[in-house]
């Protein structure tokens, strides 16, 4: 035992160093775009020429674009506002529906015994497991096949399909930690099924439901691949908009926009993760 002690200590030190490298790997690229977004250099972000808020200003309409070269690559605040509005509309609607569907399913799986239970459990895992591209094109073929016009509606429906699975997983975890006799006690004291759900079950699983909603919301807001296939011509979401901008070339305005998206995602995800981890 003693013989291995020094090497164990060494290993432990190496691990700590490695851990810092690992976290650097995760955060340095993100930190870099935050830094670049404040760089005044319009040509090469990697060369620092001075601090500026201009790129953020172009997003909110506060700064004029100076050169014609930049004008061709800069989107108007109105256009940005429209795609952001689309994205929020889709994310809010899809996450809301997915929260209802996912929660109902989680309750059914947790509280009932039925023959097809295993089938449902496997079915709910599938949308999270199969590659996004397969989900996207199968929905594209389906919507075009039944003559459903592609647009915000198809994006919402498409998102609900896979977001329900995420909500299901989060709410299920919460239900597993809940005492089932509480529901029996409520019925015993004279409350019908609806009252029991509203006053006992729901308050107990609420952190899971809200956490599930927020995760679904952020996943919907960030989705690129599935949306890419089922979005119509007039229904661009923020990620598709960024995708189009990135295809035209790297510009400081994208960097600023990316930082704003990053910030928003992190705030929502943090709240979601905190709620999910709160002990019942």
């Amino acid at each position, binding site marked *: *035992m003693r013989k*291995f002690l020094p*090497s164990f200590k060494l290993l*432990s030190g190496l*691990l*700590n160093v490695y*851990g810092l490298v690992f*976290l650097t*790997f*995760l*955060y340095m*690229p*993100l930190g*870099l*775009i935050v830094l*670049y977004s404040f760089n005044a250099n319009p040509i090469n*972000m*990697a*060369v620092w020429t001075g601090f500026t808020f201009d790129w953020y200003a172009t997003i909110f309409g506060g700064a004029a674009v100076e050169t014609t070269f930049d004008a061709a690559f800069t989107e108007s605040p109105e256009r940005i506002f429209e795609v952001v509005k689309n994205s929020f509309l889709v994310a809010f609607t899809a996450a809301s529906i997915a929260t*209802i*569907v996912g929660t*109902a*399913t989680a*309750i*059914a799986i947790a509280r*009932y015994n039925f023959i097809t239970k295993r089938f449902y459990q496997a*079915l*709910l895992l599938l*949308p999270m*497991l*199969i*590659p*996004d*591209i*397969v989900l996207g*094109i*199968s*929905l594209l*073929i389906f919507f075009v*096949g039944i003559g459903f016009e592609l647009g915000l509606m198809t994006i919402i429906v498409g998102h609900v*399909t896979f977001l*329900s699975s995420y909500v299901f997983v989060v709410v299920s975890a919460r239900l597993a930690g809940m005492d089932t006799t509480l529901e029996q006690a409520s019925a015993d004291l004279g409350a019908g*099924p609806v009252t029991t759900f509203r006053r006992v079950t729901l308050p107990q699983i609420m952190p899971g439901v809200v956490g599930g909603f927020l995760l679904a919301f952020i*996943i919907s807001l*960030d989705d*690129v*691949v599935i949306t890419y296939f089922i979005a119509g011509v007039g229904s661009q979401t923020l*990620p598709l908009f960024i*995708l189009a901008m*990135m295809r035209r070339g*790297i510009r400081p305005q994208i*960097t600023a926009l990316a930082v704003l*998206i*990053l910030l928003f*995602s992190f705030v*929502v*995800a*943090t709240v979601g*993760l905190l709620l999910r*981890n709160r002990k019942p």
Partner: protein
Amino acid sequence: MAFGKTADSRRRQGLVLLLSPVTLLLGVFFLIPLGIMIVYSFLEPGLYGGVEWNWYPYNYGRIIGWPLNDYETFEPIYLSIFLGSVKIALLTVLVSLLICYPAAFWVSRMSEPRKSFVLFLITLPFFANLLVRIYAWLLLLRPSGFINMALESLGLIAQPLDMLFSSFAVIVGMVYIFTPFMFLPIYANVEKLDFSLVRASQDLGAPPVQTFLRVILPLTVPGIAGGSIIVFIPALGNFIVPAFLGGSKVQMTGNLIERSFLQSRDWPFGAALSLLIMGSVVIIVMFQVIRSTRQNRGAA
């Protein structure tokens, strides 16, 4: 509420009510579309997009070698792109495994509340927008990007390295994106690991390398397998990462599918390519299910 019913039949009603939304949703918008996609992959592509309702196995033939020669030829490029995608996905799995495995041990040895915080830090990038994360690597890897600038200013290189638009860039990008997927299953496994077994092995005289190979590694196989699968699947079908970091030089099956749907409008061919990916996914998942049930039975 229902009167004149027994507790069981009332419960049955509740169950039907709770399950109908998901049944409708996944039935209509998931299973039926998948079914239609399978059907499409066996239909003849129409001349100007769309499909002809004729039995046509040659969508697959074009990919793996029995084409309808008077119409299309067998192009080994499709198969080689598919195999290339498998290779890139496997390398992504391997690299993220090597990165995440020691990190899992690093975190598992921490004490609360530090551990929870570091876990949170590792999970958080998962919620950053995919495009934002790819964009960050574009800024890092391009010839006038951060890495080249840094190396040049240090005098290590004279000419910018050509890192972007290569398999290397695609793998780096995917490893970065899928790191939380690989980390969490391995961490969950390592966290449960009984370290007294490691001490027992050392106590029995096994040198560290032996202890690792014969005790630690076998016990962490479930986490490695789980993480590898959930990284491999999205890596295999990816098209956004190669589109930006691979450019025109690195093509993956996902890019072929995208093009056949949105550019050449040969939907049956795209459907066939998607099924090729789906098929690989099914095989891998079944392999994992068999492996884990066998392991569970062995433990019981």
